[in-house]
């Protein structure tokens, strides 16, 4: 999945990617890095995408980082909670790569003006 997301986004701009294979690894990474964007799946072992999102939004340093949350098809509760917890964009797996590209470019450019 990480490879897939990378292959979709590569070539859309000057980007560098860091990968975390679990919620904990993401927390380790976020402790010393300030990414411009976070993409997370809801379904992660131990620390879920929603919990990671809450962590980011509560962190003074990271709270404004855009977060794209990928959820399982049909899980409306997960979607709603992700939205309420401050997800910037929500995608359902499988998603159209173009949608991801547009979402990421939009988030990285920031609000117009």
């Amino acid at each position, binding site marked *: 999945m990480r490879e897939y997301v990378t292959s979709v*986004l590569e070539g859309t*701009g000057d*980007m560098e990617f860091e990968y*975390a294979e679990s919620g904990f690894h993401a927390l*380790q*990474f976020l402790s010393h890095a300030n990414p411009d964007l976070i993409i997370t799946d809801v379904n*992660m072992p131990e620390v879920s995408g929603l919990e990671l999102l809450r962590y980011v939004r509560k962190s003074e340093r990271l709270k404004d980082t855009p977060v794209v949350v990928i959820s399982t098809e049909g899980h409306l509760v997960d979607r709603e909670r992700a939205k309420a917890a401050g997800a910037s964009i929500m995608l359902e797996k499988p998603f159209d790569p173009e949608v991801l590209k547009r979402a990421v470019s939009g988030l990285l450019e920031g609000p117009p003006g």
Partner: protein
Amino acid sequence: MTSQLTALSEIQDLVEEFSRSLLQIEAERSGGRDSDPDLVNAAFRSIHTLKGIVSMVEVGQLVALSHELENCLDDIRLGKRALDASSLDLLFAAVDLYTASLAHAVEPSRAVPDVTSFLSRIKDTGAARPATRSAEEQVSLDWLHEDVRSVLTEYEEFRLRENIGGGRGIYSIHVSFDLMDVDGGIERLKSKLKKLGEVLTYLPSADASREDRIDLDILVGSGEGLEVLRASLTGETASIERLNTGGRSPGRDEGVPVVRGHESTRPDDVAITDGGSGKRRAPPSATPREVGSVASSVGLPGAGSAGSAPGSEGVEEPPQSIRSVVQTVRVELSRLDALMNLVGELRVIQGDFTRTIARAENTLRGVPEVRTLHVQTRQMARRIDELRDRILDVRMVPVGQMFDTLARVVRKLSREHGKEVRLVVSGEQTELDKLIVEELSDPLMHMIRNAIDHGIESVERRSAAGKSLTGKITLVARQRGNSVEIRVEDDGQGMDWLALRERAVSRGLVSREEAEVMTSIEALRLIFAPGFSTLDDLSRSSGRGVGMDVVKTNIMRLSGQIDVESEVGKGTLFRLTLPVTLAIIQALVIEGGGQMFCVPLGSVLESLMFERSEIETIEGFEVISLRSEALPIVYLDRIFDLPRKPGDGQLYVIVVGLAEHRVGLVVDDLLEQKDVVIKSLGPGLDAVPGVAGATEIGAGKTVLLLDLAAIVSDAVRDFGTGDRRRVEGMRA
């Protein structure tokens, strides 16, 4: 193409991981325990991740398959669908479909698997089982702090309700870890908590006072009391409270986060996380592990022991970069082959170099640098050998992966045959060259199939014979020096060597006279003879292997050996001995027809010197007498149409093959033994019969490696029944 292959092998890994979860779930079920929700969720996550990857590669109907399977597993983990024997069957069938689809993607000549009918099956059974919801709607979560509840995933909330509905207490454990040790710390804690209940979720708090630590609130459902849980936390920096009696929230996250950040200077730095599969290997175990259809009381591999490092607390470890947490690369075998070839060539050049120095030594006598050169070339040789060993190391994979596949076969076949079979494996961590593991899986599968087909008796017959009703197949791997021994043993009906002997006579493979003097071991080895096995009823009832000649040929191609022991009523044991790798082999360099060849030393039983006058002719075939048995001979020069060496004095014979299929290969000379790196032949040459590869042996000389399996089977076919005729018998 490379990225396609990478994706395919990633899919394969996930499917194997999925299959392992299923096997564990089944083992728990047959042990009479409830399925561990973590296992079901792990199975779900494997497919969830897989679903993302299959969309990258256009492989058959894998997208549709993954989609339906994810829905099915999602329903199961959310309690909307029962996890019973039939749904497990369906999930195992999916594993087969993935495997077949991957095989078809790699080799389009392979059959296209029928995904469509599977899809309708999975949809039908889903519809037939309406949601059997438990306490979901009745259980109130009002007491749970909104801050926590709002980030529970649907699945976590479901597990929470299930625990409450089941009368378990919900506890919140607040714990603080060094950020870099969080993996080890979590594993340690998890193994303690899993014994007492279910870990529902981990909520990280962003208000840690130090950025090198992480604070977590862990929600646990447990039937144990607060004190028991508290006692289990001894040694941890943790506090615990019960939530669902007083309805209190964990509520520790309200503080203002104190965070200092390193400014990222990178352009558009993107962090990606996913539900992907952290590889969890079973800890190496000396004790046999049971898998398969009716395994009982099995500890779950991976649960409980991974990552716990007693006594590591408080020890200052050097800070790790996040990048170093998981660092693996996937490499195609061909790239390693290319490296290995280079090392082989380096070694050849080094050998030439050493010889040149030795020659120059005569003319440069007394020059001090010559001595230094000697020392330096020896150092270089050692380094090259080390380099070779390191590359070999990279090719090694544990056989456990293959054993998992075999566990599925056992499960499937025992079902099909209505037999109860338990597979016990050990030595899964034993490593073999990836290539050998690949080539070995078919022969092993064949042996397992035979064991279930013909070896293990029906439940009724086992009961009548006073045996335990469940048959047992044992699969053991262990390293012995430079080779690996794999034993496949069953406790079935065994093979009747007298019956085998009769069968060989009736099929005209041996004469009555020969049969009379056969030992039980020789008779058992008849199952490896071409033309011995058939699929008729007689063979089924005689309980012996089918297609074992093919198995033996395949094992020989891997420079391996196979042998059999069997006892009527007790069972059968196949013992395979395989080299650890084929990339480099010990070879015997020989000469025939004025050319050099090499043969794998492991396949050479012995080498002898003979006078031409000792050759006899029996029914038009040339033989020599070896320990009063006729050994058929073939001439290396004739196989390859090479000029014959003049003269009629002594000649050398190398005895190749096994047991009753011994053939003497006549060569002009035996030159030397050495380790050689084998290269595959280019297109055009790879179809030459009798040649398996090529190698360089110094001074720019390339020699061919003989395909002894092909030479022996050709010779045996030509000789027909002649290869075992006793010389005395013919003389009489």
